[in-house]
């Protein structure tokens, strides 16, 4: 009876995720081994053509850039999110509510609109560029848009709320008396922060790192709108193959590569959290 109930309750969501998440994901890997079709679908039979084309097309610089950008975004986001989560947990209740609301609003604001906001700020005639020129900080003919710096800036902007909220969730459970104890024992505020607080929320930090890194790996909208032609990431190539050349197997092969790249940090996280579970004495 209970078995049947379990089955009936599980079936609708499970079947949905199976049909529209697991099977399509498997299909992408499968499609790598199908020949392409000029009409934008896939041809009959099996072939290794796509893999050969992939090896010839020299994607290595793009892959490197993608990993680099994501790693930089991750480091910047986590180092800003740590002190911010630390502060947010320690302020009074009413302030904390306001702070959280202020962190959540940019997070919920439409993604495209946030990118647009930066595009207008960084535009040669935009407010930020004009302001910096007036302050004498940059040259008159500076181009803040369409370069790697702009891509990094906007990536950090879009990912930072994620990092803050993740670390905040961990910091909420942290015993803050431990910090007072450390201070009583003669630690400076900085030492207490680095040697007591940071290890205390390491799980949150790990989750934030993985989350930001993985989300950045798959970005294509940010480089497309604020980056130049030399700032394209792997995901930009996927859209170009899928919509520009209408070569579905080629796009699928790239997506399969991205999938592998995403699985590595996730596996690392799973292994680390399993190891640290064993560490904790019962």
């Amino acid at each position, binding site marked *: 009876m209970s078995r049947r109930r379990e089955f009936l309750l*599980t079936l609708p969501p499970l079947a949905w995720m199976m049909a529209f998440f697991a099977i399509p994901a498997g299909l992408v890997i499968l499609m790598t081994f199908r020949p392409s079709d000029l009409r934008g679908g896939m041809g009959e039979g099996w072939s290794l053509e796509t893999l050969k084309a992939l090896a010839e097309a020299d994607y290595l610089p793009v892959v490197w850039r993608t990993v680099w950008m994501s790693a930089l975004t991750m480091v910047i986001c986590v180092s800003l999110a740590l002190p911010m989560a630390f502060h947010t947990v320690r302020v009074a209740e009413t302030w904390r509510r306001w702070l959280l609301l*202020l962190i959540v609003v940019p997070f919920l604001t439409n993604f495209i609109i946030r990118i647009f906001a930066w595009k207008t700020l960084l535009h040669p005639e935009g407010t930020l560029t004009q302001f910096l020129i007036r302050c004498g900080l940059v040259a008159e003919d500076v181009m803040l848009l369409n370069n790697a710096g702009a891509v990094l800036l906007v990536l950090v902007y879009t990912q930072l709320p994620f990092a803050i909220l993740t670390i905040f969730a961990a910091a909420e459970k942290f015993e803050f008396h431990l910090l007072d104890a450390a201070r009583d024992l003669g630690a400076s505020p900085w030492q207490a922060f680095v040697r007591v607080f940071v290890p205390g929320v390491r799980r949150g930090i790990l989750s934030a790192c993985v989350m930001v890194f993985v989300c950045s790996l798959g970005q294509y909208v940010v480089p497309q709108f604020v980056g130049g032609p030399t700032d394209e990431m792997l995901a930009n190539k996927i859209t170009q193959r899928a919509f520009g050349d209408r070569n579905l197997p080629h796009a699928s092969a790239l997506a399969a590569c991205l*999938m592998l790249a995403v699985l590595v940090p996730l596996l690392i996280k799973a292994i680390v959290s399993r190891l640290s579970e064993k560490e904790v004495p019962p």
Partner: protein
Amino acid sequence: MKRSCLPSLVTLAVLVFFFAPLVMLVVNSFNASRFGGEWEGFTWQWYERLWDAEEVWDAFSITLKVAVVSSITAMVLGTLAAYALHCFRSWLQNLHSMLVTLPLVMPDILMGMSLLAFFLALGVELGMATIWIAHVTFCVSFVTMVVLGRLQDFDFTLLDAARDLGASPRVAAGKVLVPLLLPGILAGGLLAFTLSIDDYVITFFVSGPGNTTLPLRVASMMKGRNLPMIHALSTLMIASTFLLAALAFRLQRRYA
């Protein structure tokens, strides 16, 4: 004991970083200048133009329809999933849990690409139905997580009490479980609704020609010359985000 002021300075700097672009959008929506580099006087004209821009309102109505239908579907599926995951332990639930949590960490483009490949392989015509399927698929996981959080705080002895007082399992679920879980389910639905309105990447892959949602419309307007109109539209959207978030916070406080 003296506290370092560095964390509060970082917090302040990050908040300025968060809000400066948004505030500039709002200011520029009333600015007569096209690029907003300089203030050239107050104007309502971008809002007037936005009011007359039919393609924007068409996109808006498509977005709303998709968001309402997908968040309701995701609410039902997500609640079922959360209940099953909370109450049962078996190999089936392990698989279930993996399938529900993986989309949370999967970059959008992979879901978009794989659904596109899936629909093309099946020969399904891209349109409203495919957008709906895609949106439900990425929303279910979020609803499940929110409801699961609520279930962990739920006192299951209340269900036993209802059964002792003579309620059938169905009545107990309908009159005790669902009403008490409702704030969580609604919070999940609200999250799904916002995510559905927000989505650009996945919709871009599965929408096909002629079904432009608001984010897709804004993105295509960004390439054109109607920039000040986007300022006006953005201001309205930021304002509604702020109101919705404040409302959600209120609700949470009342039921917490």
